[in-house]
């Protein structure tokens, strides 16, 4: 009874809202459907409609996949301490972080599926019916950890919110083990994703032990930066309250993470430049161009500049605690890491090719439309989740006051 009432009033909340809400959702739907149409073209014609080649078989899709795994991991890692040390008042913030993680994970799964040549054979991955090649395939492990993480991030906030809806206290001894489990799990999803590339001896650009630590460090920059922006939007448009101090604390964490990320980048530069072997070629291609090919150079240089400038803004307390400069830095860091952990990571791994050739890659219109479509889908999911959980959190949406609007 309670459940069906919950579902009915939740559904009603999703379709009612101010005009800006309809505009926003409508826009996302249009972009998502355009992406779907582009994807159907890819399915019926083949991956020839992408810019991918035998030389660069992974590109925009896998780049976005990698970036979003980082967002999903960081969104939870950041807020876990809130659960443990202060279960009460901070948990509102936590739940929105988990909603962000869920949306990012849905995009992660969509990007991997979009990249697959044969999505009709997804069932081949189901253990028993198909074959999941464990323990040897890191892609197999990634499927396990990403889906497990998705479950945890649906289950934990789902339980807490349902209790809040029923106006009951959550059973801490029941839910805390799951929360504790989600900490190493968040680390694992980004580590395993790094290992997908890291384990390939054929690609010296990825085959360096620094890769997984750098993944985590950079994820702690982009994920929290996204959260800082999202909280400001939420508190502007809803009754949901987040203290400035909370956001500044997150900004401080980003500062440390970026310092580590830049240090590790420096270590990478030193090793490659000083030893000056053929393993330097991908890095050369990325930052300076190789054999007259330099498609990624303006991108990665932008990323480097953005990351450095943002780091300085986060470092100086005066600019860190000023929302104008803070927000600029957040946007810069998100773009910077998206380039660095997206195309800037995937594409140079393939250049030069193992037999020395330099073939560049740039995404095709179909790839770009599908990518935008998946981002729109993710944002749509995030909007929908927030539309339901924020009123629960603010106490406007309970089993008694279920239909009053937020």
């Amino acid at each position, binding site marked *: 009874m309670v459940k069906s009432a919950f579902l009915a009033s939740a559904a009603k909340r999703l379709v009612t809202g101010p005009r800006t809400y309809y505009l926003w959702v409508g826009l996302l739907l249009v972009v998502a459907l355009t992406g*779907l*149409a*582009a*994807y*159907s*073209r890819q*399915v*019926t*014609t*083949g*991956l*020839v*409609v992408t*810019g*991918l*080649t*035998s*030389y660069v*078989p*992974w590109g925009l899709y896998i780049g976005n996949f990698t970036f979003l795994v980082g967002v999903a991991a960081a969104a939870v890692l950041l807020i876990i301490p809130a659960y443990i040390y202060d279960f009460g008042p901070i948990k509102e913030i936590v739940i929105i972080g988990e909603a962000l993680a869920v949306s990012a994970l849905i995009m992660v799964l969509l990007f991997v599926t979009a*990249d*697959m*040549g*044969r*999505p*009709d*054979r*997804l069932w*081949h*991955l189901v253990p028993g019916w*198909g*074959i*999941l*090649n464990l323990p*040897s*395939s*890191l*892609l197999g492990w990634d*499927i396990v950890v990403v889906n497990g993480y998705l479950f945890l991030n649906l289950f934990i906030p789902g339980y807490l919110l349902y209790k809040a809806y029923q106006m009951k206290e959550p059973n801490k001894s029941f839910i805390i083990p799951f929360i504790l489990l989600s900490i190493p799990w968040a680390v694992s999803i980004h580590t395993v994703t790094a290992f*997908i590339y890291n*384990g*390939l*001896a*054929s*690609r010296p650009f990825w085959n360096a032990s620094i890769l997984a630590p750098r993944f985590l460090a950079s994820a702690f920059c982009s994920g929290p930066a996204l959260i800082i922006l999202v909280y400001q939007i939420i508190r502007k448009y809803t009754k949901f309250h987040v203290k400035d101090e909370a956001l500044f604390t997150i900004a401080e964490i980003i500062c440390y993470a970026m310092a580590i990320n830049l240090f590790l980048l420096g270590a990478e530069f030193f090793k490659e430049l000083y030893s000056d072997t*053929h393993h330097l*070629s991908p890095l050369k291609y990325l930052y300076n161009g190789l*054999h007259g090919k330099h498609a990624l150079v303006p991108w990665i240089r932008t990323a480097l500049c953005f990351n450095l400038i943002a780091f300085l803004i986060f470092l100086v307390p005066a600019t860190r605690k000023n929302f104008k400069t803070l927000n600029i830095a957040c946007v810069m860091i998100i773009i910077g890491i998206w380039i660095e952990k997206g195309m800037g990571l995937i594409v140079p*791994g393939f250049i*030069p090719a*193992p*037999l*020395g*050739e330099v073939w*560049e890659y*740039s995404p*095709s*219109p*179909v790839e770009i*439309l599908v990518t935008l479509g998946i981002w729109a889908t993710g944002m749509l999911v995030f909007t929908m989740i927030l539309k339901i959980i924020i009123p629960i959190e603010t106490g406007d949406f309970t089993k008694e006051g279920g239909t009053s609007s937020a």
Partner: protein
Amino acid sequence: MSRRKDDAASPSGNDQQTGSGTADDPKAAGGLEKKAGVSRRRFLAGTAGLFGMITVSSCSWDEFFQQNFRRMTREEIDQTLARLQAQYKAKYGKDFVVGAEGPIDGTLFGYALDIQRCIGCRRCVYACVEENNQSRDPQIQYIRVLRFRDGNMDFEESDLYYDPDRVPQEGYYYLPVQCQHCENAPCTKVCPVQATWKEPDGIVVVDYNWCIGCRYCMAACPYMGRWFNWADPVIPAEELNTRTHYLGNRPRFRNIVEKCTFCIQRVRKGRYPACVEVCPVGARKFGNLLDPASEVSRILRDKRVFRLKEELNTQPKFYYFFGL
């Protein structure tokens, strides 16, 4: 945009057509890209295609639910082969033989290539394309012949697209590269669904009906030995080779990976691979590494050999040697 067309077409080896009878058809590749152009109306029409996803390879339920080759019983294999033959007959109007000959006990296939004899004529490339029903558009060629300047073996300075009037050229030598059939194969290790594996006779194969098209194996291969069908393969009907093997040269379809199988359809019947047969200078040798009397065993004993990228511990069964 025209630059992008080149990017998509050429890595399949478009420029590699040098000095051969095989038609060089950049127009066809360009046309394919044009077809791939973006138009809104096309998108809407294409949406209907989503529903056809299951029928992506014009397949039946039997095909959709087909198990991994290594899990099939003898009976299931026979049914699958019969179904494929009927399917190929319907599609190409020809009677195909689709075999599934297994490995022969006591056999481990190995290859030896004499880089002092190779003249860089690329006849092996084209013989391979014809024998193995590789797509002509987009182009797939399992063998890449690299040209090096004398005194240099730096891959980054090698040239795949050399195009002189005559070969061999003074001051250069040639190094053909194809799947090295590694004993410690990085490609089979990474496959998330075990769609590719090393057979007991050492041949690395792909079950085209099990591959999900993730291309992880292509990222893992240090020799560029794997090829992806970016679109439906196009092969002129009169050039089809109808003598095929399930794990070898049977016709493929879009969005799956394929590779050199040492001509599994030939070598398991005691014949030589097509590239060995066609080589005009006898630079290519093939045989059973476990048989001390075989030609490859003799070469490994008597000649100086090397393998590519030994430092990666892939343990190729493809050796290069100095025969003269």
